[in-house]
């Protein structure tokens, strides 16, 4: 098998056994990028030089017989809304097409501590707003399973890169499903942690109370390894949880006996693509056969979660994106006076989806509407969270489809509202701040189907274990996107 199709854990073994070098591995990934990038377009920026320096350092360490961390020398991608010092960070927006952060995001520092190799900054929907990566201000990324289709969004570039072998692992960010949905569309494992589990310092904010960074990987073991590298308290993030993160590899136990699984009936109604529903059902049956217990539960406020999200997230975004004004960094348009400059800069720099959400959010917060929209949405959020709290008193995990459908064609969902509606299964989880993982559970017409496993706050280990057991009983993680011959 080609190196670029392998996993972190397998490659780590090869590295420490000195059967391959990090430089070799990194070059192999670069070659793969050369081969498929013209058809996939995962990357906004490639950092080849730096990557080779990072790889060389790891090789030197191994050469000296020093122990190396699990991610050492393993090439990965970072979604381009994660700040990398000295490396352009654009958030896939014309607004930041020349922005070079003078600092690293905390997760970037943590990856560097392990000696991970970063090969590039991955494409995404502009400022993480979208479900298909079609909102990127630069170009569209294509789904490696079918290049006429979207890879999902907003972390589409990250998911496509992993699926196409252009990265062994990647980081994405998830505000309403932006890790899980592209992971589902691209056949990857994608995990959104409990809110506060991973530092947001250096993640360009979209909706501050919902955003989280998370791993996108080939299998559950890799997911646990990346999580180990980046989870944990950060004093620079006031919303960071000050509880030590466990070793998530300890959760990789092939056992779901007595695991209580809840199937929220509101997630299995009409509107699900039949093959998706069938794949989920088959997967749940399999878990039951492996010893899990399943029951139907109810999350009665589910239908209100999406509209609440589309008031809360844009409201916070409208404030978070106010700083993009041409004054201190980023794009600047000429203007007769400062207000003129603000307007021209922002109108030129932002794409339509960003403008839409900024205006929606501004409206929801504005005088006379705050109570009816924003405040109301925050109250609904409480009810959504309480629904989950209640069911988690009875069950350990919830299982749902990640998305009601498989990857759609580029250009197919042109109406904004229709695009929003496909987030229906992922959004409530962000509102409640819960951890959730998506992993492949079947195929429909050659396209991956994603299954979502949701856990209680800080129960990453529980969902990892369930996911691991399921994964080991199947071989979806071993399948690779048929991207033509290389």
């Amino acid at each position, binding site marked *: 098998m080609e190196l670029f199709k392998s996993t972190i854990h397998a490659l780590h073994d090869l590295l420490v056994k000195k059967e391959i070098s990090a430089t070799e591995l990194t070059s192999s990934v670069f070659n793969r990028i050369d081969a498929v990038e013209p058809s996939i377009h995962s990357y906004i920026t490639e950092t080849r030089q730096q990557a080779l320096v990072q790889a060389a350092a790891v090789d030197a360490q191994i050469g000296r017989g020093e122990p190396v961390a699990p991610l050492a020398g393993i090439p990965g991608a970072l979604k381009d*809304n*994660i*700040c990398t010092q000295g490396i352009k*960070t654009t*958030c896939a927006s014309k607004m*930041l097409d020349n*922005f070079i*952060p*003078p*600092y690293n*995001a905390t997760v970037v520092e943590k990856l560097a501590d392990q000696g991970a190799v970063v090969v590039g900054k991955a494409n995404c929907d502009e400022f993480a707003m979208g479900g298909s990566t079609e909102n990127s201000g630069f170009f569209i990324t294509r789904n490696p399973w079918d290049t006429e289709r979207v890879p999902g969004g907003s972390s589409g570039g990250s998911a496509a890169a992993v699926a196409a072998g252009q990265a062994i692992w990647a980081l994405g960010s998830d505000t309403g499903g932006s890790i899980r949905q592209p992971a589902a569309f691209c056949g990857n494992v994608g995990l959104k942690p409990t809110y506060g589990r991973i530092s*947001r*310092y*250096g*993640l*360009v*904010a979209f*909706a*501050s*109370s919902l955003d989280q960074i998370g791993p996108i990987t080939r299998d559950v073991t890799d997911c646990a390894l990346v999580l180990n590298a980046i989870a944990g308290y950060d*004093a*620079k*993030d*006031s*919303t960071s949880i000050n509880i030590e993160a466990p070793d998530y590899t300890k959760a990789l136990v092939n056992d779901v006996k007595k695991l209580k699984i809840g199937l929220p009936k509101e997630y299995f109604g009409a509107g699900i693509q039949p093959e998706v529903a069938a794949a989920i059902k088959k997967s749940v049956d399999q878990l039951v056969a492996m010893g899990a217990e399943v029951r139907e539960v109810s999350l009665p406020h589910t239908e209100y979660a999406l509209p609440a999200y589309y008031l809360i997230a844009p*409201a*916070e975004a*409208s*404030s978070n994106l*106010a*700083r993009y*004004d041409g*004054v*201190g*960094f980023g794009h600047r348009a000429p203007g007769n006076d*400062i*207000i003129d400059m*603000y307007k021209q800069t922002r109108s030129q720099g932002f794409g339509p989806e960003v403008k839409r959400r900024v205006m929606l959010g*501004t409206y929801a*917060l*504005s*005088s006379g509407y*705050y109570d009816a929209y*924003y405040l109301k949405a925050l109250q609904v959020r409480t009810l959504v969270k309480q629904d989950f709290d209640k069911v988690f008193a009875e069950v350990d995990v919830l299982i749902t489809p990640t998305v009601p459908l498989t990857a759609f064609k580029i250009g197919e969902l042109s109406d904004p509202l229709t695009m929003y509606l496909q987030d229906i299964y992922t959004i409530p989880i962000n509102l409640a701040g819960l951890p959730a993982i998506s992993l492949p559970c079947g195929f429909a017409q050659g396209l991956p189907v994603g299954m979502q496993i949701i856990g209680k706050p800080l129960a990453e280990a529980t969902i990892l274990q369930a996911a691991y057991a399921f994964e080991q009983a199947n071989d979806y993680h071993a399948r690779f996107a048929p991207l033509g011959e290389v």
Partner: protein
Amino acid sequence: MTYETVIGLEVHSELKTESKIFCGCSTKFGSEQNTNVCPVCLGLPGVLPVINEKVVEFAIRAGLALNCRILPFSKFDRKNYYYPDLPKNFQTSQYDLPIAVDGYLDIEVDGQIKRIGITRIHMEEDAGKLVHSGAISNSEYALVDYNRTGVPLIEIVSEPDLRSPAEAKAYLEKVKAILQYIDVSDCKMEEGSLRCDANISLRPVGTEPFGTKAELKNLNSFRSVQRGLEYEVERQTQVLEEGGRIIQETRSWDENKGVTLSMRSKEQAHDYRYFPEPDLVPIVVDPAQVDSIRASLPELPDARKARLIAAHGLSAYDAETITASRAMADYFDAVVTAGADAKAAANWLMGDVAKHLNATNMPVENCPVAPAQLAGLIALIAKGTITGKIAKTVFEGMWSSSKAAETIVKEQGLVQISDEGAIVAIVDGVIAANPQSVADFKAGKEKAIGFLVGQVMKQSKGRANPELVNKLLKERLAVL
């Protein structure tokens, strides 16, 4: 129709913490532009704020010193508006749950003590500074310095209880004194660490509803606060007397022209769209912490003033003047502790010391005459070593050289002449040299003695003991 003035003041005070409110940059004033900045206070993409615990402590201290109730649960909110001195185009402030509410302070104007309510105190971050090329109105561009962005502020909002510009000035001075006493701020208006905006309206005397208010900005000194408000009272009175209506607007005080100017044409309706700051978690104040902060408060101006009156018999006016600033009060205490008589200390402080400080705008902390040295000077007068008049000369010497009084007296040979024999000699000499004055005195002109006393003092280069001069002159004249 007589109108009653109604004034409310919003005072912003920069807190003297080492680092900014949400990041570790220095709060030092006067640094080179954009050298006390970091990704956080620059509002770069991806950054997050973390509250400086000292800011909360200082805010609680201020709340307690201003007799407020500290809210047990308090949070931060975003105030959204666009301006180039605000990197994120929102200010992290406190909206509906500020740290302290319902306080008061007492002011004294024309001998009357009046209680002014304080609605609330909240924490917020300061903005940067704009430097305009040329005059604000026609500069083609502006330059921005973000050093000040993120410096911690407390905003103190008074109830509209002030009824005159003089009361407003007294209130502001009291706020400044209190904040300095509790050591949370330098309160230097000239450096911007104390700022004041005013809301002012008029209503017919005896009526309840408030009139339409104007908001005054650009009141950059105590003087401009009073002058600006006085101007507004006149302006609004004139408008109302002419049958016009006051427009609710923001007006800027122009110190040079001595007028307030409407900023209305450049004003946009601000919809601040306040919402809870998602990047900061709420503050739950521990009652034990509040008690401990309360216990650690120093003696506040009013209490200190009362003590000085009680302990030293100072007049209310003297005590008020001395306790107007903590540094002055501390200086006074030190002089008394060094052994000087309190009344004499007060007189010197409010007299020569104040005069010299004011002449060079020097804060009392930098006074070149140390408290113990002033006490030394006062002791020399009390002992009779020098006259009161000579003491002034000695003081000058002390001021410019920072030497002790005794040293200067010795160096300049200023010891008072108290030897009767020596004085008699000078007196006789003056009597002999001024027959006309002597004759005038003998003829009944009592005032002529003044001239003769003056001559004796002149002859003795001011060193003769004045009481002895008077006594001996009278004695010698009597025997003629």
